[in-house]
């Protein structure tokens, strides 16, 4: 009788221990999964900011929209009327199949001020990751 009680106690304790262990493992798995998602989000955002900044610097450097195309494009995008689109991969290198889509929209004001809106999109989800606005003044005499 005494032996049977001890055996039941042992099994109960083992079951409780295994239950607690499974619960802790599940919570930890969720913890690590959330951390991985957050880290990936941070990495994607940092990449998007780098690309937007790169495009803004190219816009500031370019003397014309053709120049901007030459600075930003290899075989990874196109220039339309007032929009340039370029794709980059996760290593931020030009790639026609890349997961980042950089859109540069510009509006040439009559007074020589060109306003740029740079948007970086995640092609996988279609969400805009980052938007940057800047402007460049080009004097009419070309100075």
């Amino acid at each position, binding site marked *: 009788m005494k*032996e049977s009680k*001890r055996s039941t106690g*042992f099994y109960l*304790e*083992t079951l409780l*221990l295994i239950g607690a*262990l499974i619960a*802790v493992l599940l*919570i*930890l798995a969720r*913890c*690590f999964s*959330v*951390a*991985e998602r*957050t*880290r990936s*989000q*941070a*990495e994607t*955002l*940092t990449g*998007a*900011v780098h690309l*937007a*900044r790169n495009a*803004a610097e190219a816009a*500031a450097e370019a003397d014309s929209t053709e120049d901007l195309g030459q600075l930003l494009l290899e075989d990874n995008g196109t220039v339309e009327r007032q929009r340039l689109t370029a794709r980059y991969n996760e290593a931020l290198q030009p790639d026609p199949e890349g997961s980042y889509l950089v859109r540069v929209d510009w509006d040439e004001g009559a*007074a*020589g*001020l060109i*306003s740029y809106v740079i948007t970086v999109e995640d092609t996988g989800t279609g969400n805009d990751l*980052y938007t*940057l*606005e*800047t*402007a*460049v*003044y080009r*004097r009419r005499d070309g100075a």
Partner: protein
Amino acid sequence: MNRRPIRLGLLALLLLVITVCMTTLGVLTVATAQADLRLAERYGEMNRQQYQRELAGQDFLRQADETTRDGLPLSLLEGVTETREGYEKTITVGNASLKIVLRTDGGDLKVVAWETDPQWNPETKTHKLWGG
């Protein structure tokens, strides 16, 4: 028949130690990932503010150019002060400001300075460690 009792206590203790270690690692991983995301958001915001200053600066340059072409003094423009260096305007967005100094030479506009000054204010009072 004297059986030796099975001791579960030591195993439970070992599992407890492993669980505590794993939990600590899990909490640290989440905290680090969240810090990474906050840093990335801050980096994005700082860049946005930098290019907002640039946008305002370029617009000021356009206004100044038009004013010079019209033969008017740059001091007529809003927020412009006349200094020894030339006509100065400071554009502040966020924690930094862009200082632009322009000079007019015979109807021609020249950019003398285009500088970003960070405005750093320490949150805690610094202590004097050594008087020298």
